[in-house]
């Protein structure tokens, strides 16, 4: 993919996802690749046309028309019986009514999370098709290589070509079993914005907003309105409240203890608190309930120093029980170090062997560097510090790490 294409994809990510969702609904899932090409072509056309003629009032309708023409043009050949494109040609009406598009996107997410797709492919596929992420962006979020993401996408598309997939017909209600998979996709989408590898603040904010918008749609629809969805949404709002304050005036990343808490977004905090209230029902505690509680501990603490780190460490321990993950151990170690001192953090990591995907990831080394530095282990601190800095995904992250690690 060229650099120009990448720029277009990022800037029009929202439109891309809408176009793909709506066109796949009309053309059928087996036509996915043609639909993706058409969406891409429409966005590229927009780049030149809008620069010359100005941005049209209804960008969505303009893009839809161009994408549809592209799709029909590509397929203008002797019509095969049952040509799915015939249906599109027969009904080229513009479906850009917000409600319909919202439903199509929700449906498309459920389709991407089909349990017949290999599990590791679902996430990559959804991020590519629904959100327009590049393979590089997906690789960074999923802690894997671009080649691996490419393989996962290829496997997903291979399965989809087998044919009996259901982009067209299923009622959303019947797709409810895929909810956990959908939650996972929305969660990663949000984190791509929140913890982003992008340096552009606007793009990160857009991803977070996008995840919140989709999750709000899910929470307001019977198919997804359940406590775990509410907890996920609370989690997103509580994190999003801190998004703007994570950057200083020159665009650098600010550490939690450096942030001005009065700049936290009051609207997001209120939404977060209110969704938490709705999430606290039933008798099942999901992973998102626990993570929302951790976000709440940070959001509702009066200051960094007054944060209840012991509570947070306990919540991470619960998460480990639910789903053993070295990332949870790592976070628990960070919380323990704040609650009881750096040695407690190091003790928690004692004997933990990071899996290959985490070993050599900058987060792992950054935590070890920080804990060793505070515990006075100069040599070990320097060792992990240089690994963390060389692995950091952006210059902004490297600068924040240097401040934290005092190097």
């Amino acid at each position, binding site marked *: 993919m060229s650099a120009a294409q990448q720029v277009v994809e990022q800037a029009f990510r929202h439109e891309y996802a809408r176009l793909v969702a709506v066109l796949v609904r009309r053309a059928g899932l087996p036509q996915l690749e043609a639909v993706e090409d058409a969406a891409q072509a429409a966005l590229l056309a927009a780049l030149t046309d809008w620069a010359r003629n100005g941005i049209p009032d209804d960008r969505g309708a303009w893009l839809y028309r161009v994408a549809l023409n592209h799709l029909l043009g590509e397929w203008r050949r002797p019509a095969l019986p049952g040509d799915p494109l015939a249906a599109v040609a027969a009904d080229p009406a513009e479906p850009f009514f917000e409600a319909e598009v919202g439903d199509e996107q929700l449906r498309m997410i459920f389709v991407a999370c089909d349990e017949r797709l290999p599990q590791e492919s679902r996430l990559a596929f959804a991020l590519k098709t629904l959100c327009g992420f590049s393979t590089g962006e997906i690789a960074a979020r999923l802690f894997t290589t671009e080649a691996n993401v490419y393989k996962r996408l290829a496997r997903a598309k291979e399965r989809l070509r087998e044919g009996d997939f259901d982009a067209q017909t299923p009622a959303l209600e019947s797709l*409810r079993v895929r909810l956990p998979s959908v939650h996972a996709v929305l969660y990663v989408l949000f984190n791509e914005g929140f913890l982003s590898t992008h340096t552009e603040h606007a793009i990160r904010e857009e991803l977070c907003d996008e995840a919140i918008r989709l999750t709000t749609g899910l929470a*307001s629809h*019977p198919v997804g309105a359940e406590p775990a969805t509410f907890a996920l949404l609370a989690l997103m709002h509580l994190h999003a409240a801190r998004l703007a304050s994570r950057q200083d005036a020159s665009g650098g990343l600010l550490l939690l203890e450096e942030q001005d808490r009065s700049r936290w977004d009051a609207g997001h905090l209120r939404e977060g608190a209110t969704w938490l*209230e709705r999430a*606290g029902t039933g008798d*099942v505690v*999901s992973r998102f309930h626990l993570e929302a509680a951790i976000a709440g501990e940070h959001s509702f603490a009066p200051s960094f120093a007054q944060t209840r780190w012991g509570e947070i460490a306990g919540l991470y321990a619960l998460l480990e029980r639910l789903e053993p993950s070295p990332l949870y151990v790592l976070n628990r170690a960070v919380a323990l170090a704040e609650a009881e001192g750096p040695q407690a953090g190091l003790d928690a990591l004692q004997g933990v062997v990071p899996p290959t995907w985490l070993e050599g990831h900058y987060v792992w080394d950054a935590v070890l560097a920080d804990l060793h530095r505070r515990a006075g282990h100069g040599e070990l601190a320097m060792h992990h510090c240089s690994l963390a800095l060389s692995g950091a995904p952006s210059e902004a992250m490297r600068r924040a790490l240097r401040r934290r690690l005092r190097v």
Partner: protein
Amino acid sequence: MPKYIVFMRSQSSKGPSGSNSPPSPEQMQQMFASYKAWMGKFKDQITDLGDKLKPGGRVVSATADGPFVESKEVIGGYMIITADGFDEAVEVVRACPAAQMPGAQLEVRELSGAKM
């Protein structure tokens, strides 16, 4: 005995942003405290998003039973009950005060039991 999950729906589409008045910082602290209290009560029942639902189900409403639920409605909560078959589950649900509320609809779905 099979287990059933009962979704409690209401006609209201009021989301948090549409609620009466935005909570004050003190109220938010209180809301968070209640949330933590709720979690403390159930923290031994942590599960990753519960069970799969079998397709199909029955809907119990104040007026008539039917297989469909209007998409404008919002699930207000759910409960899990054990019953000897759908008929008994529906009976239990009918007796539930939530089913008597005007506009209330409760959807009963059998859990597949795969995780139990």
